[in-house]
């Protein structure tokens, strides 16, 4: 792995970790959603700094170049994150449906109460 590749990977991973940390600090990202992103950044850092691990991993998966291993793992993390979001979206859709249903019940009750008060 060329030194330029190493420096770039370390900078990119560090920038990702710092960005996530700042977003959590500003409460723009909740910890539960940040875990996979942090794992991605830390994972890339470990693989680049601990170069023998990257070589061992490349041999294990049959990758020709260590950079291929890095890209592959980055891609796998992105897929995992996408699945994670799909699961969250499903949960949010169900919750939204539930809230809108309850709101429709309450709105009807309120209309009936107002009507009753008006008549009384």
């Amino acid at each position: 792995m060329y030194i330029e590749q190493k420096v770039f990977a370390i900078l990119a991973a560090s920038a990702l970790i710092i960005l996530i940390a700042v977003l959590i600090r500003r409460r723009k990202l909740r910890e539960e959603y940040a875990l996979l992103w942090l794992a991605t950044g830390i994972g890339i850092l470990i693989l680049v700094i601990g170069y023998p691990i990257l070589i061992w991993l490349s041999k294990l998966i049959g990758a020709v170049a260590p950079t291929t291993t890095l890209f592959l793992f980055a891609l796998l993390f992105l897929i995992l994150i996408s699945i994670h979001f799909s699961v969250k979206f499903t949960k949010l859709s169900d919750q939204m449906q539930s809230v809108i249903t309850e709101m429709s019940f309450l709105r009807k009750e309120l209309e009936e109460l107002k009507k009753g008060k008006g008549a009384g």
Partner: protein
Amino acid sequence: MIEDALVIVPAFNEAAVIGDTLAELKKIAGKVLVIDDGSKDDTGDQAKNSGAEVLRHSANLGYGAALKTGFSYGLRYSKMSYFLAFDADGQHDPAFLESLLAPLRKGQADYVIGSRFLEQDTSAAPVSRKVGSKIFSLATSALIKEKITDPTSGMIALTRGVARVFASKFFPLDFPDADVLIMLSRMGFQIKEVPVRMRPAKRPGSMHSGLLKPAYYLAKISLSMVHFALRRDLKEKRREIESVY
């Protein structure tokens, strides 16, 4: 006059036709509940002026979600023994509602479908839709080992027991269809079809119009059918639902 069933009418932007639909429906049904699914027009107000009870979704959630709201409301706020689903666009003929309820009242079924194809083809749907419906009916019949001719019909009648399942997370929020029949059959509910006549919708367009929507619909229903066909725990899930609701 039907006094033992709540008629649920999901409606989205149906202001132009819902008044006529409800006027016809109210001659036969004692209690009609319209779910205004986030309409941009005054569907909800028109329905209210026509004497129906109205629930209003603050956003458009889809046909299945509107039905689900109706079933949840019926279970919580009414003592009705049965529920009927009826389209707002004028396709459904209220004259057939009694025949849908008859098998439920006699205890012959838990879920009754108004079929356009049981006696003779009374559907005004385009050929492509009919072909799709035929494929689903063959697949559904094979999976539940019972002849189903119109699994995509929206004219249905059901017991409170089935409504409990429909008010749970097992009910699809977009297009409840053949997949629901497989789920109900696997849960041990009795399904029956009765012949009905359907009319052309009073306004153009449908929730399955366009190119992408039908493709998505086919893929989604197929996946959902496979999902329910492969599950072996649905009787257990039914017991869980019955213990919660």
